[in-house]
């Protein structure tokens, strides 16, 4: 069993900001998807994934972000990526993730 991890979330009105941190790159990052689902169920209309603490995103991280996109799309919620470093933006562009989300400039 993966250890319990605490996923930092900041809620302002109908917007929830979730900090991707480093755990997005591990299997335990699946908790982020569940957290997003929880926020949407609680009435959140916009999900912001904040990458300020994320150095790089690996394949597991990309897969988990696709899960987050899926969760938001199914609920008709808006999804925003913020505080992404240059390299990661480039990667997300190439992989097509940016087709599905709004990216806030740094």
């Amino acid at each position, binding site marked *: 069993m993966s250890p319990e991890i605490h996923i930092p979330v900041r809620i302002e009105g109908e917007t929830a900001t979730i900090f991707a941190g480093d755990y997005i790159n591990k*299997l335990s990052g699946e908790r982020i998807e569940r957290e997003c689902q929880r926020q949407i169920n609680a009435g959140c209309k916009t999900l912001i994934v904040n990458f300020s603490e994320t150095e790089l995103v690996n394949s597991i991280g990309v897969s988990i972000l696709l899960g987050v996109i899926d969760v938001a799309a199914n609920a008709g919620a808006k999804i925003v990526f913020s505080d992404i470093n240059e*390299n990661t933006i480039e990667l997300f562009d190439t992989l097509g993730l940016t087709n599905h989300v709004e990216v806030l400039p740094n």
Partner: protein
Amino acid sequence: MLENQQKLIHTFGALADLGQEVAHKQNFQEMIRTSLHLVLGSLAIMRGGVARYSRFGHELNMLVMRGLGDNFPLSLSLCYEDERQFLANGLAPIEVKHAQVLPFVQIYDRSFESKKIELVIPLIIRDELVGVIFLGEKATGEPFTGYDKDIICAMARHIGVGIAQRNLMAELERRAEENRHLYEDLRTTYKDTVKAFAAAIDCKDKYTEGHSERVGKYTEIIAGELGWDNDHVEGAAIAGYLHDVGKLVVDRNIINSPTRITASENAQLSKHPTVGYEILLPIHHPYADVPLAAKYHHERLDGRGYPDGLHDREIPFIAKIVNLADSFDAMTTDRPYKRRRKSEEVIEDMHRNSGKQFAPELVTAFCRAMLKELTNERKEKRFRKILGKDYLEADKIVPLLKNVLNARNATSPLTFVAAE
């Protein structure tokens, strides 16, 4: 040829991670879950799943899915034609839109369409279908390139090997389990045979009915009290059950003689240990000492036993145990020429003959086992079941047993051989 360097690094990172994952993960489910993440994440594929093929059920059972929702089938039936085509295709992505000839694609077309499944990759490992990977569309919305397919193939091979390994392990476990059952069956058969033999031996002797079985049980008690493991205790019990097997060839009239037998009759009776040994030796026993127990169960520590007049250390340990069990039963059951002795006398006899006929450490073990039962330290009443509930009177026996145990603990050497 390649989109850009960063994508390359990203994809190869996933491939390397997947190799590690398959090689080192102990938990199969977690390995498959991580593998699917790596495949989807390496090329940003929106959704997908990994299924394991069951050859017996001819079905694909989903191991893990992402983004396929609740309506995607958890189990997909395959027919012979599907399997044949998968094997002919080998481990390579099949585009669903070009695979309408596959019966299973026709059956599950709706599920595939609603979840935009674009690729189906049969996991063929060593010419065997072990599973299938389903992949949806890419996040870019572009079709899969040849390069993408190569990457997918390499990753699919890792996952296929992981599943094949798991199947092999499961098969090995199943066979080991089957072996264990077979072995258990054999053991049961062996024990039943032993008991049938013991009953046949005892049949010859109407006065000592049940003797072999009782000796088996006393032997078991002593071995257990010595702290032997279950297998050895069982072996000891079997040696006890079979110790008198040689009596099968002794004349019934000698065994059943109501009076003391003559010298020549005695000579015939005295052969039963050696005869027993010869009977038991060719049989492949799970326990090595069974024939020796038969041969030497009438030997005494002081060398006055038979057939070989062995002394203490020359006598196999198991034979010493059986000797004590045998003598205890002889003293505590009615014989043609005398009634059974009182329990107090029997304890005193064992004590007196400890170091002469009996190995002292065995007398101690036997008395300790009896004491535990009489003082309720041990709940199971094994002696009482054999001897009847009134034979051992606790108030008389307990002090005697304590006396035996104290005497041994205080001064005696482990084994004492009395001078002639």
